[in-house]
């Protein structure tokens, strides 16, 4: 049995920036929901949550401010479940755990702060909760089903900072990217976040992607870039002149696929495929080609290593380390808004979720809601595939749905059936 008496965690490299920038609007909280075919049974659901209590000690923590850095400290708080009746992705209070479990009718959701983990960690947690719940309702789980069994002792690798594990000092010059174009829409009144979800048949989108010889993610990113290009081009000459002429999309990459790790904390970076409108108009075919090559190039192991090195080196710099937290937070928030200015949008794809035929038959869909965008980015998009359907989610803090309209219209024009759904 491992001793967790003195258990505490440094924030991982990706998490370090969030405490400095998070607010009631920019919460850095994302959600994954699973819609079951039947209503959630309260008794069994609570039993499932109770059985998880000691399995994830690295999630049973609260954020604390140290003198130099924030850190995660164990909290003697139970895993609780709350009715899903409020705005998704709300901020966590100071004394709360950094994740919450929500339930409503036949929907189970988990919301995690990015301080704690990324989409992969959250999905693993949700899968574990779901399997245990189904088991309690009498479903026979397949023997080989991989999940975090409550009786297993948490391994150190589960809460390792994998960025540090794969950090190698690389001396190379990092070029600063020029600022990118951002949608010119007015912001909503607070609370700003509005969510739009759309359902697409995976088969037709996969066929289209195959037609262009790219992955579904590449295809979605290309559509997003194309829609942004249209928005740029439809501006008045003066606005066009004043706008940044680079359109770039941040696409998170699950680093576990490149650098093996079982960490349940953050371990993702991003690539930023984009187009330069100084060079003129791009056809969709050109955009798809650019996205495909840029993504392949930037996900090269050596380039990812370079990015890890750049990020972790900053954290390891003696001057940075010895700065008191309040000064460091000031710099981090400046760094964050400078970073956000470099891309026009985010498209994150959780990929296809497959839990095996038996479990799949009990589930209607998975929905992935990304963290609310900040007031520079304004809109972002997430996707999750399940059982032949791809669920797209747009988080928008502006009064306009023009970007979503163009994105989805483009898909319908390509012959892909799009069904808009309410997330409620």
């Amino acid at each position, binding site marked *: 049995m491992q001793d967790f008496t003195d258990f505490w965690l440094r924030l991982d490299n990706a998490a370090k920036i969030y405490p400095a920038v998070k607010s009631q609007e920019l919460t850095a909280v994302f959600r994954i929901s699973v819609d079951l075919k039947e209503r959630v049974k*309260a008794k069994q659901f*609570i039993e499932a949550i109770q059985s998880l209590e000691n399995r994830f000690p690295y999630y049973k923590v609260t954020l604390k401010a140290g003198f*130099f850095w924030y850190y995660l400290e164990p909290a003697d708080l139970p895993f609780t479940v709350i009715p899903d009746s409020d705005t998704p992705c709300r901020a966590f209070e100071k004394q709360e755990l950094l994740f919450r479990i929500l*339930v409503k009718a036949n929907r189970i959701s988990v919301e995690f702060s990015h301080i704690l983990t990324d989409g992969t960690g959250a999905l693993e947690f949700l899968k574990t909760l779901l399997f245990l719940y189904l088991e309690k309702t009498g479903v026979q789980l397949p023997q080989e089903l991989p999940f975090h069994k409550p009786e297993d002792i948490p391994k150190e690798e589960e809460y390792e900072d994998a960025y540090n594990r794969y950090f190698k000092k690389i001396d190379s010059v990092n070029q600063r990217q020029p600022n990118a174009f951002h949608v010119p829409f007015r912001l909503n009144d607070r609370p700003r976040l509005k969510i739009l979800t759309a359902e697409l048949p995976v088969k037709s989108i996969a066929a289209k992607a195959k037609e262009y010889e790219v992955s579904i993610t590449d295809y979605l990113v290309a559509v997003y870039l194309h829609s942004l290009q249209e928005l740029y081009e439809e501006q008045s000459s003066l606005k066009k002149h004043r706008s940044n002429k680079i359109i770039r999309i941040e696409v998170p990459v699950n680093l576990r696929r490149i650098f093996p790790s079982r960490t349940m904390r953050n371990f993702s970076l991003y690539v930023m495929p984009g187009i330069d409108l100084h060079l003129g108009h791009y056809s969709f075919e050109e955009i798809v080609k650019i996205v495909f090559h840029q993504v392949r190039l930037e996900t090269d192991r050596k380039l990812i290593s370079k990015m890890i090195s750049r990020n972790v080196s900053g954290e390891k710099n003696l001057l940075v380390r010895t700065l008191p937290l309040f000064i460091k937070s000031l710099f981090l928030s400046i760094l964050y808004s400078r970073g956000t200015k470099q891309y026009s949008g985010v498209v994150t794809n959780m990929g296809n979720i497959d839990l095996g035929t038996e479990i799949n038959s009990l589930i209607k869909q998975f929905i992935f809601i990304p963290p609310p965008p900040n007031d520079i980015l304004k809109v972002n998009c997430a996707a999750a595939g399940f059982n032949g359907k791809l669920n797209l989610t747009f988080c928008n803090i502006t009064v306009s749905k023009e970007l979503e309209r163009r994105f989805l219209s483009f898909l319908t024009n390509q012959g892909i059936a799009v069904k808009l759904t309410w997330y409620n």
Partner: protein
Amino acid sequence: MNICRNCGVELEETMTVCPLCRQATGNSEIASIPDTAGKEFIVYGKKMSPPEKKFTWEIISLILLSSIVAAIVIDCILNSNITWSEYPAAICLTVFSYISMFTFWQQRTTFQLAGGLTLSIILLFLFDLITDGINWSIKVGIPLIFAATFLAAILIKIIRHSKYKGINLIAYVFLGAAILCILIDGILYYYLRGIFHIDWSLLVAACTIPVVIVLFFVHFRMKKGRSLKKTFHI
């Protein structure tokens, strides 16, 4: 099918309250509501009922009254006058004032303390008046009671607002005692010599401070585990 109207989940037929949102499913009043951890709420710190309070007050009042009478009688036998017995009697009257306020005046603690202070000031003043004219009450008794009450109020506030109630509370009490000593010293010196001066209490405070520091140190070490590294890691 029993379904929660608030969160829409399916409940067991026997459940009268949704264990997730605690919404009652029917109109029945439920005495105990299970929380999400499936445990019942437990009421800690049972308070005394009014008759129990009154009974306790009567016992304490009797003890205090007999103490006052005994002190005065002994003083009178020995000195044929009320001399030193004024002081224990004054202490008993002060205790009586506070006990009475806390027993019969159901208010916030701050108001109860203020009430106790007011009542004890009145009693001490009257007691001083009837025993050889106004002498010590205004210059010593009332300032001392005021200082002690004020410090007690601050201590109560701090203790109530302390998230962690452990050795830190002892440290707060030590700190309060040190400050009270300084105030007592100052008030007595002024009463006896007519000038403001602090003497022995500084030594008391100097001895108390290291104890307070050690207590706080032990408390925070225990509260946050054995490692201070997390607070100061770079």
